[in-house]
């Protein structure tokens, strides 16, 4: 089995040195939107919005 071994050498990126990137991702609002595909299967888009950009729910 040699298939995966023929790859070109690659540069491996280091992990983010600080927690800034991760911290920002934690504060975002997770937004999901589910659609029904033509064949009946379900597909969900996941997006992340900055907290200040999130829609404010209207009061009942």
């Amino acid at each position: 089995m040699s298939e995966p071994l023929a790859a070109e050498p690659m540069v491996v990126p280091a992990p983010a040195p600080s927690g800034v990137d991760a911290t920002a991702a934690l504060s975002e609002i997770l937004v999901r939107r589910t659609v029904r595909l033509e064949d009946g299967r379900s597909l969900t888009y996941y997006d992340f919005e900055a907290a200040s950009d999130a829609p404010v729910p209207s009061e009942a």
Partner: protein
Amino acid sequence: MSERRWHPMLGEWVVTATHRQDRTFLPPADYCPLCPTSPGGFPTEVPESDYRFVVFDNKFPSMRSPAPVPEVAGNDLHPVAPADGHCEVVLYTPRHEGSLGALPTGDLVRLIRVWTDRYLELGARPGMACVFIFENRGEAIGVTIHHPHGQIYAFPFVPPRVERERAQAAAHHARTGRCLMCDIVADERADGRRLVVEGEHFVAFIPFFARYPYETYLVSKQHRASLADLTGDEVSDMARVLKDLLGRFDGLWQIPFPYMMVMHQAPVRTDKAPGDHLHLEFYPPMRTPQKLKFLAGCESGAGTYINDTLPEVKAAELRAVRLEP
């Protein structure tokens, strides 16, 4: 055609899924079904022209709900059941090139949040007993589409590997009053020879009992039953340790390192035992850059693994990998 057939000798289910023989097999990059659909381009699995993360029902599922009626009749010796369940595909990125380990740490945090959402969503569906998150990477593992993605299965039963692990944890807890994985983590940290990466809240190590040369566990240092029990800081640290570990895998031989990655945790949110402890297990199939570790006669027929290497040596190799700045 899909159904569950009972294996009376092993006491476990086997799922048949003959339609999967026809699934997409190594398509060229410009016909990748997991890329977004370009304007005027051929329709992929994802109708929109861009996305962040996408989760969808597998087009060729091993299980589905409602499941088709089995086409074969069972009997007392050979029970048959519908192959109920859910099989989802998780797209990590709209870009065709890349990998889980190449995602920025922030996107790994977001992915962990997506995994958590699916864990809660699928685990709350009627009849589901275990949500199983995993990724197969590389053709050596049998990957048929290269676009970076993982999978999630929701089973209507707790699969035998998870069940056996839970039984061992329950026996340890009954004997000692402690969580088995907590004790393993404490022992590995005290010894130190098999550690690969240690973060504030997560640690990665090749376990004392590794069956594959580079088998690696990534474990919460605190006792956490599932993804849903993690704090924000812990999610962040899990992402960092995961990225570090995957960088070491790819850096070891400077090739995209094949692996199976599986997540073990409380099977669903409402089925939590004292020994359930969130962790990822990686089973890389390579023992050298040119040689695979085959699950041959002894492993497959006797269930006993022969590891040709020592975990202490392999962990040192991974620790020595220099990650490019």
